[in-house]
C-alpha cells in the first residue's frame, strides 16, 4: 500500500517530465542558490518486521554548503550533525562521532541529502547515477548507487522538490524496507 504510494509519486514525476527540457545542470544551479535555513520534517520508516511504520519528527537546519543538522524531537530527542567529513550523533547523553568516509551507511543516508541540498553534482555522481524528471517547480531526482558499499544497503533514493526547495526524500533499501521524509520549510527570513 505504502510502497505503491511511492510509486505513484514516481509516476507523477514521469507525467510532469514530458513538459519541458529541465536538466540536472539547471536543477543543480538552482539548488546552489538555496540560502539554507530551517525546516520541519516527518520521517516514516517502513520495516518488514514491524506491523506499522515508525514515525519520527523534528527540525532540520542547513547551512550551505557543509553543515546539515537533523534534530529529532519525537519520539525521542536525538541530534545528528553532519559537518564537512564529520558525522556526530547524540542520543541519551551518548555521543558518537564518526568519519564519514569510513561509513558507507553514513554516505548513503546523510551525505546524499546534503549533496542534493547544496547542488553538488560532482559528489553525487561519484556515488550515484542521477536521473531527473519534471520541471523546475516540480522535479523528481532519482539516485541509484554505483558504489558497491552503498548499493549493498540501498536500492534507490528518490528526492522530490520544487525550485531550490527539497520537499520529500525516500530511501528504498535492498531488503525492501523504506524510509520517507517529508520536509516543510519554516519561513524564517
Amino acid at each position, binding site marked *: 500500500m505504502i510502497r505503491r504510494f511511492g510509486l505513484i509519486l514516481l509516476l507523477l514525476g514521469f507525467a510532469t517530465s514530458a513538459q519541458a527540457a529541465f536538466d540536472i545542470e539547471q536543477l543543480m544551479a538552482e539548488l546552489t542558490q538555496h540560502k539554507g535555513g530551517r525546516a520541519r520534517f516527518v*520521517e516514516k*520508516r517502513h*520495516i518488514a*518486521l*514491524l*506491523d*506499522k*511504520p*515508525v*514515525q*519520527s519528527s523534528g527540525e532540520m537546519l542547513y547551512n550551505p554548503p557543509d553543515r546539515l543538522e*537533523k534534530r*529529532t524531537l519525537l*519520539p*525521542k530527542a*536525538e541530534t*545528528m550533525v553532519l559537518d564537512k*567529513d564529520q558525522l556526530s*550523533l547524540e*542520543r541519551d547523553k*551518548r555521543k*558518537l*562521532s*564518526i*568519519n564519514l*568516509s*569510513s*561509513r558507507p*551507511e*553514513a554516505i548513503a*543516508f*546523510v551525505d546524499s541529502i546534503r549533496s542534493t541540498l547544496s547542488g553538488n553534482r560532482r559528489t553525487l555522481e561519484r556515488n550515484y547515477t542521477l536521473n531527473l524528471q519534471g520541471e523546475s517547480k516540480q522535479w523528481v531526482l532519482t539516485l541509484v548507487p554505483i558504489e558497491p558499499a552503498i548499493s549493498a*544497503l540501498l536500492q534507490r533514493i528518490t528526492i522530490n522538490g520544487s525550485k531550490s526547495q527539497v520537499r520529500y526524500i525516500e530511501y528504498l533499501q535492498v531488503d525492501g*524496507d523504506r524510509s520517507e521524509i517529508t520536509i516543510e520549510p519554516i519561513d524564517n527570513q
Partner: protein
Amino acid sequence: MKSLKLRIFLLWLLCMLAGSVVVWNSRFSADMSFFLPSKPSAEQRALVGQLQDGTVSRLLMLSIEGADAAQRASVSRELRQRLANNPAYVSVQNGEAGGLEGERDVLLRYRYQLSPSVSPDRFTEAGLRAAVANTIDLLSSPAGLMFKPYLARDPTGELLEVIAQFNPGAQPETRAGVWASRNGERAMLLAQTRAQGSDTDGQAAVIADLQQVFAQVLSAQHRSGMTLQISGPGKFAVQARETIQAEVSRLFFVSMAGIVGVLLWVYRSPRLLALGLLPMLSGALAGVAVVSLVHGTVFGITVGFGSALIGEAVDYAIYFFVQSGRMGLDNWRRVFWPTVRLGVLTSALGFGALLFSGFPGLSQLGLYALSGVVTAALVTRFVLPTLAGAQFCVPAPRPWVHRVLTGLVHAHRLRALVGLLALLAGGYLWQQRASLWDANLSALSTVSQAEAAADSRMRADLAAPDARYLVTIGAADQESALQAAERAGAQLDRLVEQGVIGGYDSPARFLPSTLLQTRRLVSLPVADVLQTRLRAALIDSPLGADKLAPFVADVQAARSAGVMRRADLNGSALALVVDSMLMPVHSGGWTVMMPLRPAANAPDADIPPEKLRTALAGSGALFVDLKAEFDALYSGYMDQAVRLSLAGFLAIVVLLALTLRSRARLLRVLLALVLTVLGVIALLHLAGVRLHLLHLVGMLLIVAVGSNYALFFDRAAGGEPLDAATLLSIAVATLTTAIGFGALALSSVPVLQAIGVTVGPGAVLALLLSAVLVYPAGGRCPQK
C-alpha cells in the same frame, strides 16, 4: 722476592681472567630501566609497568609518504594484508575494517553476559515492553539502521547497550578507504606488536620486518617514491640501543686514540705504553665485572662511560712512570704514593656518593667508576712495578717543562684576575639563576626533538592514546581483579556523570567477573516463561511476539552457554583490549590498568587528581597521573642528586682536612675546586646549555677528579718543591682525563654528553686554577 712478584702477577692474571668470564656472561641492556626508579612507589610501578609492558609501549605508528592517495592506500592495504597473519603482530590496523564490525559477532554472541542492562527487571513483562519500545524508537534514528539486522534476535537492544560502552573517541581521517594523516598527505597504520615494549630485541625484529615487508609491497606493486616512517616507544628503544652501541665503540676509540697518542709522545716507548695501559684496562674490566655481579645487568651507557674512566685511570700509571723513573720505585712509594692514594680516595668518595642514588643508571655509573679507579690504582701500586721491573726509562722532561715550572713561580700574580673573573662568573650565574636548570626528564632522553615532534604528529594523526591518566588495581587473582575493576568502574561512572572525567576503559566491560556474569545469566527466563511474557508485553507493539523466535532461542543459548571466559575472546581484537588492561604480574597476582579520558571541556585536558583520589579512596584502586609521576620522579632524582653531591663534597672536604692538617692549604685547594665548578657552569650557560641532573653529577666529579691535580700543587705548599717531572706527570694526567671525558662530550647520549662537557673542561680548569691558587707564591711554602 722474585716468587712474591710472580705470585702477585699470577693473582692479577687470575683476577683478570675471572673478570673476563664475568663480563663474557654479562647481560647488557640499553632500555629505559636506566632511568626508572630502583625502589618504585605504587604509582611509579604503574609508570614502569606502562613503559615496559603497557599497551601503549607496544604500539608502532606507521606513515607512508609519497605518490598519490590511491597508491598510498593500495600499499597500505597490501601491507596490512601481509602483516595480518604474522604472529609477531597482535593487530595491524589501517582503517579498512570499519570500526567494530570484526568484533560484532563476539559481542552479539555474548551480549547477555556483557550488557550492563541485563537484570531480572528487564525480563519481566513491563521490562520487556519498555526495552522493545526503546529499540523501536531507535530504529527511527540514523544509528538504528546499523542495528536493524539484529532486531528479531535482539529486540531488547542489548548489542547497542554493549557497544555503547565502547568509546572510540576521535577517529583518524580517511582517504581512499584507509587511514590518512590530518592533511591527507600520508597513509597511516597502527601496529600492535606481540613483543613487549621492554623487549628491545623483539621490537628490533619487528621494525626490520616492517621495513622489509614494505619494500616487498613496493616492488610487488612496481611503485617507487614512497617512504615508510615508523615511530613509537619500541622504535625509540631500538634506536637508543643502536645509538649507544655505536657510541660505546666510537667513544672508546676516540678516547683511546687520544690517550695513546699523548702517552707515546711522553714515553716514546711502546713497551711503557703497553704497561701504562694495563692498570686502566684492568680498571675498565673490573668495573664492568663488579657492576655485572652487583646489578645483574650492565647498562650500555655505563660501558660508554668507560671511555671517560680510562682517561682518569691511566693517570696513576703516568705518575708512576714519570715520577718514579727519576727517583726509583721505593722512593716513589714513599714520597708520591701518599699523594696519589689521597687522589684515589677523593675520586672514590666522589664516585661512591653516586652509589646511594635511587636513579639506577647513576648508581651503576658510580659503582663502575669506583671499582674501576680503585682497581687501576691497586694495579699501579702492586702489579705494575712487578711487570715493569727496574728497567724503564722515561725521557727527561723537555726544556718547555722547565720553562713552565719557572713561570709557575709567578702564577700567584694572577690571583687578583682569577678573583675578579670568579666574581663576574658568580654574579652572572646569580642573575641567571632562574634559567640555569632544565626541569624535564626528557632532557636525558636520546630521542631528538625532531623525532619527538614526528612522533606526536603521528600520534595526533592516528588519534592514538597517550594514556596519561590511569587507575590501577592489584589483586590476588583474575576474578578478584575484575570484581575490583567493576567496583572502581561504579565510582568512575559517577565521576563521568558529574563531568569530572570524560570516560574510562575497563577490562570488565569485555570480560565481566564471573560473579557479575552469573548474576546477569540468572536473570534470563526459560523459554516458556519468556514467550508468555513477550506475548503479554508486546500485545499492542508494532513488533509482534510471534516474530521473535530468534530472540527466545538466543536467550536460551546464552543460558546454556554459561559464563564467558577470557579464551572465548580469542581471535578477536577484544582479547587484546582485555589483555592490555588486565595482566598477570611476574611476582604473582594480577594488575588492572584502566585508562581515563579527560572531560571534553577540561582545560589542557587535565583531570583533577584530588577528586579522583577522594572518589577511589578505600576501594584499593589507585589513581596515577603518569606525567606528574614522571615530573616527580625527575625532581626526586634531582633532589637526591643535590644531597648526594653535597655529601660527596663534604666527605672529600673531611678527607682533605684530615690529611692536609692545615686550614690555609685546605681552603686554597677547596677554593680552586669550587671556582672551577663555578667557571664551568658559567661557561656552559654562556654556551646556551640548560643544566640537568647529569651536569650536577659532573660538578661532583670535577671536585673528585680535579682535587688530584690540586693536591700535587699543594705538595709544594707542604714543603715539597715541585720538580719538572712531577709537573709533566700532572699535565699529562690532566690531559688524558680531559681527553677521556672530552670524548663523552661528542656523544649524542645526553647522560654521557652532560658529564663530558662538564668534567672535560673542568679537569683542565682545575689544573690551571690550582696552579694559580694552590701553588704557593715563589714555588715554596713561605714559612719553610
